[in-house]
């Protein structure tokens, strides 16, 4: 059976490592914070100028001066620090953030990412996505395997305007997990399949070239 949103977040959380500094995108990526393994220390960066993001506030703690990049009210932790947007993106662009987890509309087999613009529709802007994928050490995409109309989102070549070229390292969809060699020219490696999903289903729903290279069940 295909993974649920929470299972996707749970799977993405396996990419976390102790001591990591991590930036989480809006949507499913935000849920990853709920699955940080106990005892593991992960520090969340918010690109609007904060390191050490805490959980949502209690009703009486809400502070309009304290929001995340999704404009949601949040809280601080003892380790938190604040800085300007220029300093925040210096941190991101300079390669100081270990991991970025974000959503996508399309990913190509060499790691190109499209997640900000559909021509002909109202465009809201790329926000910090282009900076994140260009600067963060490792980029993990979490998304539904296909679009709402069933069209594949893992493609040989993205059709939509790009967010970044050769930037994605790993794609986690509701059907499985794909590794990308973003420097190379080879196919993606399918390294995990969601329980009960058939390889043929993935083949049918994927345009990108990929090779199954399943790891042993943990």
């Amino acid at each position, binding site marked *: 059976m295909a993974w649920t949103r929470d299972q996707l977040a749970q799977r993405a959380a396996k990419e976390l490592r102790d001591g990591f500094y991590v930036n989480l995108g809006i949507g499913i990526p935000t849920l990853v914070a709920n699955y940080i393994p106990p005892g593991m220390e992960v520090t969340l960066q*918010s*690109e*609007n*100028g*904060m390191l050490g993001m805490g*959980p*949502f*506030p*209690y*009703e009486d*703690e*809400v*502070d*309009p*001066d*304290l*929001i*995340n990049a*999704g*404009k*949601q*009210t*949040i809280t*601080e932790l003892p380790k938190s620090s*604040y*800085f*300007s*947007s*220029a300093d*925040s*993106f*210096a941190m*991101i*662009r300079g390669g100081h953030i270990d991991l970025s987890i974000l959503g996508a509309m399309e990913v190509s087999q060499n790691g*190109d990412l499209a997640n900000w*613009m559909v021509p002909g529709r*109202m*465009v*809201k*802007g*790329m*926000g*910090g*996505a*282009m*900076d994140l994928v*260009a*600067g963060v050490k490792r980029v993990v995409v979490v998304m539904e395997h296909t679009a709402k109309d069933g069209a594949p989102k893992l493609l040989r070549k993205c059709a939509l*305007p*790009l*967010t*970044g*070229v050769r930037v994605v390292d790993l794609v986690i969809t509701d059907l499985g997990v794909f590794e990308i060699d973003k420097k190379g020219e080879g196919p993606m490696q399918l390294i995990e399949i969601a329980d009960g999903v058939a390889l043929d289903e993935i083949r049918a729903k994927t345009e990108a070239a990929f090779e199954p290279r399943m790891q042993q069940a943990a």
Partner: protein
Amino acid sequence: MADKVFPDAKSALAGLTFDNMTVMSGGFGLCGIPENLIAALRESGVRGITVISNNAGVDGFGLGQLLETRQIAKMISSYVGENKEFERQYLSGELQLEFNPQGTLAERIRAGGAGIAGFYTKTGVGTLVAEGKEIKRFNGEDYVLETGLTADLSIVKAWKGDREGNLVYRKTARNFNPMMATAGKVCVAEVETLVPVGALDPDCIHTPGVFVDRIIEATFEKRIEQRTTRKREAA
């Protein structure tokens, strides 16, 4: 010295506004925006403004107020459209829009204030953002040339300030304000509390007074876009 402190937003903008000017406005979403100076800009009636701001406010608040009155000709932003009036004007061609990646926007403003004419970044290489811009290779990787941004006027919001123009921001309300304070030909700041000179810790001043030309003390509505909370577990 000419006093930097002005009694209110209107007087603080007197003589600084003109049609077709470029204005930088601090804030991220509605967090840390110069509410009072935006409202005064609306009252000034100035038209054809190019606004450099990460976002465009919401209908009826923040920069949304200047959209309603059609005072904005162009926005340079990274993310917009929390705002129906914005969408309408953009789709009808009344409003020009230039998108910059958020980090590139922040760095362009810093560069403008710091006398850096241009810089090379990896952000946006191979995308629409890099079209028509110079690409240069450093250590085997491609970078795109982006240029510094300045403005005729920058309006910023801080938490505390003094009459020398020293400013301190609070939490994530800092965001774009410090760079914008450096990149306007003139910078006007609004603060929640005007403190005596010497009350701010000199090691913790985010914007040294040299950047600030005028300052007002004001009250703030501080509207929240996404009030997200959690429940206290029962004791």
